């Protein structure tokens, strides 16, 4: 198979570091996206401090705190899920992922009730009641609904993403090798594919390979153990985890700036 070493065509390496680098670039864009709204918040807060205080008093601090704890816990379970894969504990990983998704849903449910109550009381962008408030409070609630709304969309996307990851992890890890006619198969005619143990004894033998075979795919699914663990296997899960933590970090700032400035 020495011809393969020079052919780029089969250089099938997953670039774990490159993938992590890229996801961090994406997370930078997310932070700056929210940063624009934090910019508006900072300016308007500095100009309408008293109105922002009053607005914050209208918000339900208890529900906000519960949501904060929920998201922090979901960050824990996310980190535990990834740690589970590192330790070869697939079951833990799957359970923790499921809990993370549940936390995300819990967050959204509480948001739904929070906003429902607000709307019921006539406090929402464009409402007549809000229009009668002082300017600073109008801005406060405008920013509140927008920033929490955009954040909520990110929570929803995260929940969907992590559900997809759940099913991905179910099918992992596996290794796949491809041998294509013209790249290593041409000298294999008459040979057999076999699984051999450490002593060289074949455990299983396939049929002889003839010239009509164009390609052989070998897909191995294996139970992860610590010694065999490769970071690259759960690359996507780690990236999804990083996204989820950023969503948590955004809320870490949103919570005090809207709920706690009373």
């Amino acid at each position: 198979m020495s011809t393969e070493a020079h052919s780029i065509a089969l250089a099938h390496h997953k670039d774990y570091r490159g993938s992590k680098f890229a996801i961090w670039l994406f997370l930078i864009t997310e932070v700056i996206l929210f940063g624009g709204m934090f910019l508006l918040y900072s300016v308007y807060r500095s100009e309408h401090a008293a109105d922002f205080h009053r607005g914050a008093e209208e918000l339900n601090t208890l529900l906000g705190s519960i949501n904060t704890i929920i998201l922090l816990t979901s960050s824990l379970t996310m980190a535990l899920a990834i740690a589970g894969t590192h330790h070869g504990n697939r079951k833990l990983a799957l359970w923790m992922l499921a809990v993370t998704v549940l936390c995300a849903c819990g967050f959204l449910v509480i948001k739904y009730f929070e906003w429902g109550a607000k709307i019921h009381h006539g406090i929402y962008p464009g409402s007549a009641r809000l229009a009668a408030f002082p300017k600073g409070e109008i801005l406060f609630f405008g920013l509140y609904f927008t920033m929490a709304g955009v954040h909520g969309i990110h929570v929803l996307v995260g929940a969907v993403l992590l559900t997809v990851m759940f099913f991905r992890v179910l099918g992992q890890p596996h290794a796949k090798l491809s041998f294509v006619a013209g790249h290593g198969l041409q000298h294999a005619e008459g040979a057999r594919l076999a699984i051999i143990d450490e002593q060289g004894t074949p455990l299983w033998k396939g049929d002889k390979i003839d010239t009509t075979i164009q390609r052989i795919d070998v897909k191995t699914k294996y139970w992860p153990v610590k010694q065999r663990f490769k970071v690259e296997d759960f690359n996507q899960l780690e990236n999804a985890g990083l996204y989820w933590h950023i969503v948590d970090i955004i809320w870490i700032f949103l919570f005090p700036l809207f709920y706690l400035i009373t």
Partner: protein
Amino acid sequence: MAIPRHDEHVHPGAPDANEVNFYQYQGRWHGLASWIFSTDHKKIGLMYLTLMLVFFTVGMSLGFMIRLELFKPGQQFVSAQTYNSLFTLHGVIMIFLFVIPGLSASMGNFMLPIMIGAKDVQFPRLNLLSWWLFVTGALLAVTALFTGGGPPDTGWTFYAPYSIRTGTNVTLAAFAVFVLGFSSILTGLNFVTTIHRMRAPGMGFFKMPLFVWSIYATGWLQVVATPVIGITLVLIMVERSFGIGVFDPTKGGDPILYQHMFWIYSHPAVYIMILPGLGAISEVITVHARRTIFGYSFIAMSSIAIALFGSIVWAHHMFVSGNSLVANFVFSLLTMIVAIPSAVKVFNWVATLYKGSIQLETPMLYALAFIFIFMIGGFTGMMIGVLSVDVHVHDTYFIVGHFHYILFGGLGFAFFASLHHWFPKMFARMYHQVPSKIAWFLTFVGFNVLYGPMFILGWEGMPRRYWDYLPQYTHWHQVSTVGSWIMVAGILMMFINLIHSIKHGEECTDRNPWGGGRTLEWTVPSPPPLENFRDVPVVDRGPYDLAPHSEAK
């Protein structure tokens, strides 16, 4: 329908991927589908190029109509409302559908992996997604023309509070730009990662071609700055739909904050537009002056410096909007600094030309024109960076002249130079020489006759975006309009020549048709095979050194 990973495409029984050129390679898809679903950076680059040039032509036609309307005072062909939409669309199309993707999405896609010795970008499928997002954004923008309240009339800058109140289709247009921005972010992310991770063995950062440096700096700007316009447009859409009040003075909002957020992106955006052009000019000059570049590391670092300094000067677009004096002072000072790295480039190009063996091929003609025009654009930029000058010329034709010199004369001419420079590599043909030079001459003369008078008009007080004007401005408006006819003739001639030459130009299968090419794209076949290189090249010299590379097969 899963898009296969790049390395899973090798089709049993198909010819070896690298035996034929990338047009001939038969993968999983055939015909048109082999383009639409291709993750090959070369095909993606060409698709971008084609659609972008279509939009350029549309934008140019709009400009042509604007100049026709302005031939004399009073109404010539269109009403004032239509005129407002004309210049809005001209700006939106030119900026978001041509100049911002620009040389990055087109030539960057095609050339970047080859120049660093890679087989493709880091994330080929993400690259394809960027392309699809671009098409989607373009379709949405076109839809915004014909639905709802009609095409936006706010100017391409969508300033609040008018953009919140106008009945025209701002929401859809804003969403279109949002999608386009997402495309831009993903491309920038892809290119930055590619440059970090996929350079050939031996190619340290300071052995990369200067075009690659410029793509790198541009990629960072795309990642860091574009999200700001993303959120700004979301806020406009939310304002229009729900009335949150953040930019609405009747609810306590501050329209100037809209301008801050808009320009925090849109100023770095002009560097997204020009930087790849500056990189391409470096490539064209070294090849056609048969010299190694003068001051390589300075030019390389200047691209980074332009990206950095360009990100902190945005409020110079707002000097007369109501900024505090402190802000005006700070931003004016910072604006002076951003000229320095640009000047570094110009000095080094001139030093490269000095005692070079200058071949007056068409790409070099465009490059020389570029230096002249870019300098005028830059100088006038310095002028308006001075507060006392800007107070008089803001929102006049002086500004219009300035940014057309920088953007069109700058990126536009660099774009035309690149098209001619890399034409034989992409199409294995040479364009017809004589028409190309006539076209260049008409374009260059026409450009200056079109935009030069704008400085005079602006200095004399002619406001921009005005459908009608006082009779005293008629003379220079007419000169300018005639200039537009000459220039459009030149550009059309150039396009027709290039398009014709793709099929009927003289065959040119040389790997290095200009003779002076030393970067890696001139070592691969014309056109390149699917994965660019048969073997991974090993880099052991600087990008413009005169010694040959270890020969790639």
